[in-house]
């Protein structure tokens, strides 16, 4: 416990902005995990007077259907984190594996795979996500799937580049020389050496996935309409921007803070894992 506290203090001293980010992310995670206990009302409970301004009873006011905005923002954290984490884990992991394996083996397969990556990366991300949602239909799992498809090419391209340099390393040559199979080399020697980049991709892309999910929901093609998505709440707020500014203010703040927190943490992790940026080694 003391060691953990000491590590955190050390992290805070070396990466003060990262520490702020970590604090925000910790609040987000706690909010998401304890949403049922924290939210004063159900997120879909439309039993109050619509358009109530923020007050002690409703600190974030009520929306156009008479739902407590605070409860919806709290439950929205759970939805955002779920979509962000699951889509990124799937997308980055599968994309990363794809990049590492094709990069390691090279040849025509690698070339063909990179052209597919080119095609996917050439499409504007939000257009690709919208098209996928239009084709797949509106549900939480389809949002996750669309985001995973969106994130996989970037992960594939990034980790393939790493794999190309790792496979030329002396330790890989040594492993091959002692008779390790290609798959053993990939699993035991190449993949572990991409882990730092993989973690950075995860942290940076969670924020990106949350923003894309919010954008899709804002455009009406993300989470189902009754789910407390911050993007959908922004959309509802945009329809009463003068009459009830709190309707877009709080979900907007939630998105901004979450993305800020995740990006700060991502930057800090990148700094800590990059030898060129790590203090004392430069």
């Amino acid at each position, binding site marked *: 416990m003391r060691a953990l506290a000491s590590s955190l203090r050390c992290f805070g001293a070396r990466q003060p902005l990262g520490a702020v980010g970590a604090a925000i992310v910790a609040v987000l995670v706690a909010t998401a995990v304890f949403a049922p206990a924290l939210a004063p009302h159900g997120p*879909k409970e*439309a039993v109050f007077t*619509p358009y109530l301004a923020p007050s002690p009873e409703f600190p974030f006011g009520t929306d156009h259907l008479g739902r407590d905005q605070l409860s919806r923002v709290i439950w929205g954290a759970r939805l955002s984190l779920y979509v962000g984490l699951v889509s990124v884990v799937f997308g980055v992991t599968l994309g990363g594996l794809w990049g590492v394996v094709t990069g390691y083996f090279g040849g025509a397969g690698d070339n063909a795979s990179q052209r597919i990556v080119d095609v996917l990366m050439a499409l504007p991300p939000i257009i690709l996500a919208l098209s996928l949602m239009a084709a797949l*239909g*509106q549900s939480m799992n389809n949002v996750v799937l669309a985001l995973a498809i969106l994130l996989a090419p970037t992960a594939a391209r990034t980790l393939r580049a790493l794999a190309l340099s790792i496979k030329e390393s002396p330790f890989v040559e040594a492993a091959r020389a002692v008779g390790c199979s290609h798959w053993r080399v990939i699993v035991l020697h190449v993949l572990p050496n991409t882990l730092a980049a993989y973690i950075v991709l995860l942290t940076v892309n969670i924020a990106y996935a949350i923003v894309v999910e919010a954008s899709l929901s804002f455009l*009406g093609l993300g989470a189902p309409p009754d789910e407390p998505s911050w993007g959908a709440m922004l959309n509802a707020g945009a*329809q009463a921007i003068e009459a*009830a500014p709190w309707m877009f203010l709080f979900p907007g703040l939630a998105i901004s803070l979450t993305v800020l927190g995740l990006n700060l943490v991502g930057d800090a992790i990148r700094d800590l894992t990059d030898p060129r940026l790590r203090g004392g080694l430069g």
Partner: protein
Amino acid sequence: MRAVRRISVFLAVVLLVGLGAGGGATQEKPRYGGVLTWFDYGDPGRLDVAGIWSGLLHWDPDDPAKITGDLAERWRASPDGKTYTFELRKGVKWHDGQPFSAADVKATFDRILNPEFKSPKCGASLKPMVASLEVLDRYTVRFRLKAPVVSFLGAIASAWCRVAAKHVLEKYGDLDRPEAQIGTGPFKFKRYERGNLIEWEKNRDYFVPGLPYLDGVKQYILVGAPTQLAAAKVGRVMLWDTWPPMRKTQVAELARARGNEIDTYQWPVNAIYAIYMNVHKPPFSNPDLRRAVNLAVDRQELVEKALEGAGVPCAILDPKLVGDFALPFEEVAKIAGCRQPKDQDIAEAKRLVEKHYPNGIDVEFAVRAVGNYLDRAQLLVGQLTRIGIRGTIKSYESAAGYAAFGKGDFTLIATQDRGMNSTDPGDVFHLVYTTEAGSNYARWSDPKVDDLAARALRESNRERRKQLYWELQRHILSDAPGAVAVGWVEGWFFRDKRVINYKPAKTAYDNNTFMKVSLRE
């Protein structure tokens, strides 16, 4: 000095008279030129644009409560009320230069009355009334009715019963494509850009001399309330006279932005807000489940929140439009499902659901993503969760939704407004509730409803007719209908003060030909 004073007085009088006359003239005198801009909430399922077509009759643009001739110059009913003869205008030309004649009227209505042809508006109204149609000569047609029907002329005057060209129908089969937009109306079809706009241009050969005043009309396709409101706030649209109406908060925002440049008003849309349950699919093939929904839906809450109070909860007929044909509020307010508080009805509804589904049931709520339908669907999900019906919302693009509903490809439609053809009390039953109703998406069939609706349609005695409609309303409100009547829709609209002589009709789209509308400088 006296002469100077006299001249001054004279000049002042001349000036005042001149100003007065001038002011009056700018108030009243229409001006030629200009393009009117308004909008529709989505791409139309069919391209039958209002201003392009004329009807036999129409609701008078100067007095929207009165029926007047359009393509028909004169009309008369037989003494027994079973035939109506229409004498048509001579010299009318279609937009492609072909002459208009009685053959066009026959081709139009034969098509609409064909039992195989789906005409959810005009056909749904006319099919129960009209037996046949014959051409007496080149400019005379006669409708033979199945029985004397007092609402026949109102149905014929509807915007949904415009006359199409026989040669166009023969060539294209329908009126969906841009090339088929050939009418006799005050405006000609100019272009359609999907998702952007429909443009009409002045018909210089219009059969009413001197009309229209406008050079054209631009009908933007504006999806989503924020876009629609933004267009109104910057003056890009001059008129909001279409479904969906504005909400109270929107009209307040618009009034703040445009000040005295616009007139705003509250107006009935003449549309019923209904929830449909597919009676051929479980769970709503079971009358107990339909009864449960009918009991559990809190109409007052839906009207208060979804329509921001602009509506008549629990009304199958709106007294503002049909007077005492609507069941009195006092009686409606006592009917199970409509009465407040809801505790007793919700308990009964819950019992009915538990009887068949002890653990509750998951149901997909279909909804077209237009207007504030998604908000309404969310409210309904909340209401039905209380009785064990757990809803998940499936949203459709407008036309795709209609296609799915038409095929019966749904379990429950969370909300659908159905606009009437006229203000006749019989409309709603022939459009929504009878077996053959054009918008009977639920495919509900109740012999009692069919019988009462048919008898009421043919009843000429007003008091007896009223009693029949009251009985219909009681039966539908308290039974297990396929369509739950949430209420009657009203809303707020605006008109830019530059728009002269636009008088909204009592039924949406009835006065949208803009034939007498002009624009101030």
